[in-house]
């Protein structure tokens, strides 16, 4: 009996191993690709293949706008293109790259670009764009890895100071009181703070508090150099810490809101540091709320803000890159970007669209003005982990030591910047 079983087990094992080997062997030869050097190919592929465009949509408005724009282009160019909405974009992209069947074009965030550029998944095409010089320089820099301009910024947002008009007037403040320096911001925040309301709401993350670091002349990575423990960075965090302690600034989570926009909408705070997306959220959830948008007050080293953007990533394995490039030029044209902006909020990434955007959104100009001096979160490979770690320490900034926190961030950044 036992011998029978052991023989059977051996047989089963042998069969499975043989099967596995056959399958893996197929996998090896079937999917193997000629290795091309990352970042150096400038020759684009061209074929009659249809294009697949993978986007991460904020809602129906965005999906419809992109679908319509791509359909227009298809009608003109005769190339079929299909827009797909991802449930989990990083995961679906990774699957596509691993299987060598990625979408031809896709939304790509700056924090993912180094990883994909490093493993050769991306086709750099920035220098081939006809409208290359029209993009804001800071956005081009955002998508440049190792001196290669990888992909066209599709749009962008910046952070600004959002103020509740009613609460502002109730506190006896006028337009002339709009803060332009840290001291003035502290003063108005104090004036607006009551027992059940904070002056200024923030999210507990570098993506908001980083503005103070920038305004004091610091940041995380500036011009490719980690400067997390520089004097400016420390001064910026100390400023935020002081006012978190005295209660005039508050984290949205501590106010019982998911993000600063919600705290602002529920009037748990009279001001908030948020980006362009807050306008859509307020229109949807708090349509009666009146607010104004001002540039963030300047710190000791001048004005500062952070920009957030995505680009149109192009796959190195795409069989029809020539058509994809043409589609990107269409999607980043002034006319198309203004239509996107009207449909779902963010600002056009090209300078020639600025006058039209300004006249269409006179109340939101502060966001666009930030483009001139905006910093952006670090894009080094592995930077996401460092920022996540930083954010986890910022949650307890009130009781922490800014110098010590930034010290660990600096050493983490230096480890990946080598």
């Amino acid at each position, binding site marked *: 009996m036992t011998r029978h079983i052991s023989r059977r087990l051996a047989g089963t094992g042998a069969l499975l191993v043989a099967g*596995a080997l056959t399958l*893996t062997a197929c996998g090896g030869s*079937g999917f193997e690709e000629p290795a091309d050097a990352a970042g150096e190919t400038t020759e684009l592929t061209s074929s009659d293949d249809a294009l697949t465009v993978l986007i991460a949509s904020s809602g129906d408005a965005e999906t419809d706008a992109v679908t319509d724009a791509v359909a227009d282009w298809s009608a003109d160019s005769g190339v079929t293109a299909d827009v797909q909405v991802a449930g989990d974009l990083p995961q679906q992209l*990774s699957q596509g790259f691993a299987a060598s069947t990625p979408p031809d074009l896709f939304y790509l965030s700056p924090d993912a670009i180094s990883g994909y550029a490093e493993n050769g998944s991306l086709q750099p095409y920035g220098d081939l764009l006809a409208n290359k010089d029209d993009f804001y320089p800071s956005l081009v820099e955002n998508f440049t890895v190792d001196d290669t301009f990888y992909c066209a910024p599709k749009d962008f947002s910046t952070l600004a100071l959002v103020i509740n008009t009613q609460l502002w007037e109730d506190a006896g403040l006028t337009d002339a009181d709009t803060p332009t320096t840290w001291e003035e911001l502290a003063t108005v925040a104090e004036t607006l703070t009551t027992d059940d309301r904070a002056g200024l709401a923030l999210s507990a993350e570098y993506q908001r508090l980083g503005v103070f670091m920038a305004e004091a002349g610091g940041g995380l990575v500036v011009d490719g150099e980690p400067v997390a423990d520089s004097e400016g960075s420390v001064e910026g965090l100390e400023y935020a810490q002081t006012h978190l302690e005295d209660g005039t600034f508050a984290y949205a989570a*501590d106010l*019982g809101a998911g993000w600063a926009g919600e705290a602002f909408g529920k009037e748990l705070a009279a001001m908030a540091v948020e980006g362009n997306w807050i306008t859509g959220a307020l229109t949807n959830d708090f349509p009666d709320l009146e607010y104004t948008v001002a540039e963030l007050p300047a710190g000791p080293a001048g004005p500062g803000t952070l920009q957030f953007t995505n680009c149109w990533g192009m796959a190195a394995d795409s069989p029809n890159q020539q058509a994809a490039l043409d589609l990107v030029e269409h999607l980043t044209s002034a006319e198309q970007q203004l239509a996107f902006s009207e449909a779902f909020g963010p600002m056009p990434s090209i300078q020639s669209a600025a006058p039209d955007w300004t006249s269409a959104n006179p109340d939101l100009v502060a966001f666009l003005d930030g483009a001139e001096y905006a910093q952006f979160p670090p894009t080094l490979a592995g930077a996401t982990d460092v920022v*996540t770690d930083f954010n986890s320490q910022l*949650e307890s900034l009130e009781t922490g030591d800014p110098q010590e926190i930034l010290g660990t961030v600096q050493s983490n950044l230096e480890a990946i910047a080598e």
Partner: protein
Amino acid sequence: MAALVATPRRAGSPRGIRDGEAVTGWIFTLPVLLILGVFMLVPVLMALWVSFSDWSGRGSPLSSDVGFVGLDNYAAVTTDGGLAERDFGVALRNNAWYVLLVVPLQTALSLFLAVLVNRAVLRGRGVFRTAFYFPSVTSSVAITVLWLFLFSTSGVVNAVLARLGITGPNWFNDPSGVLHNLLGALGVQSGPDALTQHGLLGVTWWDWLAGPSVAMSAFVIMAVFTTSGTFMLLFIAGLQNLGPDVDEAAMMDGANGWQRFWRITLPQLRPTLFTVLTLGLIGTWQVFDQIYTGTQGGPGKTTLTPAYLSYQSAFLSQEWGRGAAIAFILFVIIVLMTILQRWILRERR
């Protein structure tokens, strides 16, 4: 057994009525073997290879330009001293506390519920069984969302606590460790140097002893709530398999209900207990969907678990080898824990 009986009659003769059985058997099991092989064994072997390779996520991991890097990926999360190691240490710490709390609590609660609804005198047993089992059938994503609402700062739980005169914590946004908070209440704000200066995997001993964070505690309550129903079913099945005779004999000997439960019922439930504990250990060490839908590791990384860290390293940071290495370390931990638990629960003679 059939083979043993058949042998004397057909000694020496290789042919017979049962000759085709082996082949038939293989044909019948072949579909399952193929499915398991293609969808389990091969992926597992490929993942094992990835954990020893420098595969970057592009193209097949078996192509010729993917190199063997030995234990580099394992070293990155265990000995390199960098951020990756600390993240792994933090994830292990969080999950260890989670396991330590969830497994005993859910086992005790499910056994208690099973004994309750197994009693013949209880009216409407079916209703109770369904009610207790209901959370187990609901998708964990739905329950997580429900939990986020219940435990929000101004949510139901805090409203109830406020009625009782207690100011509830900011549940899913509170990264402070429960044990640290208790010590803090006793006036101990920071640990002795012996604990704060040394540590394991980049996390100081003092931080290992922080206990689950307030946010993780909410997940602990949720896990106990959702899984107790499933394990209750296992215990009910176990209880119904027990004959009444031993129990009656004990009753004749004058044992009271409490004694009969501990001395008669529980020892007989040992196989069921083993199953429940094993399933509990595996499930709690692999906790992922609650984290993915709920907190993504926050606040302050206190709900980061090895399973979620593995996903994060691979899919978000493009460190595929490291992600696979974490998964295999987790696998080894689960196997070791199961063996240990089997040894503890062994029959003593």
